[in-house]
């Protein structure tokens, strides 16, 4: 690709402005001493102080992160193994059937998944709380991981595996030394997608939270009646900065180690 001409550049800039303006607007008002989003009075850090004082909010934030990390980790593990299994199913009809079932879970509305989980958990007798939220997040993330990993597996030439077996590799070696290194970009993509899915899910989480366990999205939604306070702005600001640092850190590590997560040497 050559140098971008002017029009695409302008267009790109426009898209980024549209995407980032609301975030910066939100951040701007997190420093407002006025207490509302309607007019900027003067600069203050009081809303940030309020975030750290509110132990309940901090606990909810940590809950959200823990659930996101653990559910992404578990669903990636299950999803990768699932994708590998699907690829090696010989019968085409069966493989397509399983794939369709996977895809149905992706397109079905969150509300329905959430409601059915609620019914399931209460029927089986699982107490709503951390476990129920974690299980449901793992469940709705698995199909996403499968979808992210499958193309990489299909890209892989079967002769790679044949060669490995000819050279004396065991089944386990084939999986850990041939297949997984090859599909690594897909695995990380799946992991990060599962992470973001879990972080911003409201509908499913709403149904399965309970007994004092809550996540940020549910908490913010429930502020509807009395209005969202600027504390939420400050919290969003902190999350934005942490995300920014993580992304920068990710690139720093990548450059240093020279073995990027994305793009295996072919």
């Amino acid at each position, binding site marked *: 690709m050559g140098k971008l001409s002017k029009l695409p550049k302008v267009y790109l800039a426009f898209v980024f402005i549209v995407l980032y303006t609301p975030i910066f607007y939100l951040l701007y008002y997190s420093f407002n001493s006025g207490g*509302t*989003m*309607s*007019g900027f009075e003067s600069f203050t850090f009081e809303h940030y102080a309020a975030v750290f004082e*509110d*132990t*309940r909010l*901090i*606990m909810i934030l*940590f*809950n959200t*992160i*823990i659930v996101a*990390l*653990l559910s*992404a*980790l578990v669903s990636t593990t299950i999803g990768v193994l699932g994708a590998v299994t699907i690829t090696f199913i010989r019968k085409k009809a069966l493989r397509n059937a399983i794939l369709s079932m996977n895809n149905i879970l992706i397109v079905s509305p969150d509300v329905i998944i959430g409601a059915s989980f*609620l*019914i399931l*958990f*209460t029927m089986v007798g*699982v*107490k*709503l709380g951390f476990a*129920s939220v974690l299980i449901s997040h793992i469940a709705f993330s698995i199909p996403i991981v499968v979808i992210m990993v499958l193309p990489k597996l299909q890209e892989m030439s079967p002769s790679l595996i044949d060669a490995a077996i000819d050279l004396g590799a065991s089944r386990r070696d084939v999986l*850990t*030394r041939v297949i*997984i*290194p090859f599909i*690594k970009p897909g*695995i990380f993509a799946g992991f990060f997608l599962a992470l973001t899915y879990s972080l911003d899910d409201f509908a499913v989480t*709403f*149904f399965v*939270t*309970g*007994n*004092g366990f*809550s996540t940020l999205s*549910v*908490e*913010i*939604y*429930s*502020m*509807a*009646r*009395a*209005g969202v*306070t600027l504390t939420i702005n400050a919290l969003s600001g902190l999350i934005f900065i942490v995300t920014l640092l993580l992304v920068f850190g990710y690139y720093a590590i990548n450059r240093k180690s020279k*073995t990027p*997560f994305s793009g295996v040497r072919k």
Partner: protein
Amino acid sequence: MKDIIRVSIVILAVSAILLFINAKLANTSGTSGKNSITVFNWGEYLDPDLLKQFEEETGIKVIYETFDSNEAMMTKIEQGGTTYDIAVPSEYAIEKMNESGLLLPIDKAKLPNFQNIDPYFLDLAFDPENKFSVPYFWGTLGIAYNPKLLEGQTFESWEDLWDPTLEQEVVLVDSAREVIGMGLNALGYSLNSTNSLELEEAANKLKTLKPNIKAIIGDEITQLMVNGEAAVALTWSGQAADMMWDNEDIDYVVPEEGSNLWFDNMVIPRTAKNIEGAHAFINFMLDAEVAAQNADYVGYSTPNLAAMNFMDPEVIEDERYYPDEEARDHLEVYKNLGLEMLGTYNELFLGLKMELQ
């Protein structure tokens, strides 16, 4: 493979650290381990300092959770799996929950502070003798307006919304019972009308409001009014209070023909585990000073008569939030009209919205 394992270990370590911190936080915020109650309330509907005060006074730890609609809250309680000891539904939801047997009776002998409540808010149609519920906050539905944008025009009756000078100025809340109810009130009918002729007349009346309607929206109304982008809004007293807090030009009025009077009451759901603790909590919230502090934080009107002594006189003398008895006589509480009638209301409202397209 190695880096995948390394990343996994880092993730597990981070989760473990966060879990540890959370456990520490949970320990420091509560005084004792076993004795606790779970409170299910609307978001930002209780001063968090009061929770701490309650924990210190009684030694009962409060697990606090929030919901965003009566329907959502009812679903959670109906399904079980949770152990809410206190919930705060609105009046029609209380009636519905009671019909489905979701509520436990309240033992008033355990609530010495019950006498603080204004008798006006007791023994209402949705819960005669207050067997299952204790008033928490109340408010009205009315017109918020910005005289600066309207050359000093005032509003006394619903009919004023139909004024031809208000073209494209009126914002309505996106809620079937409120809007259809306004149409019924404007014609002098009851808010709880089930008479199909009256309902149709109200719907037709509302359709003639079309040139004046700027939008039918939800919580964004507050922002529109504060920023001066809308001049008149059909809204609840608490939301109007929010607007006035941010923009002093705005005024709020409950039209003389009458309007809706609503309540949010504390109840003990069927799923409650710590009934003793739930009573202690209700009694604590009914304490005059506590109720005053809470009303100050939340901004809605308190039904607690004794609390008035501890509140800013300017607030409680404000007829917009605390209308006198004569004004209250015109107000009506929503009745649970049943699923079928609710469907009719929703259909009429949908028809009105489609007309606006």
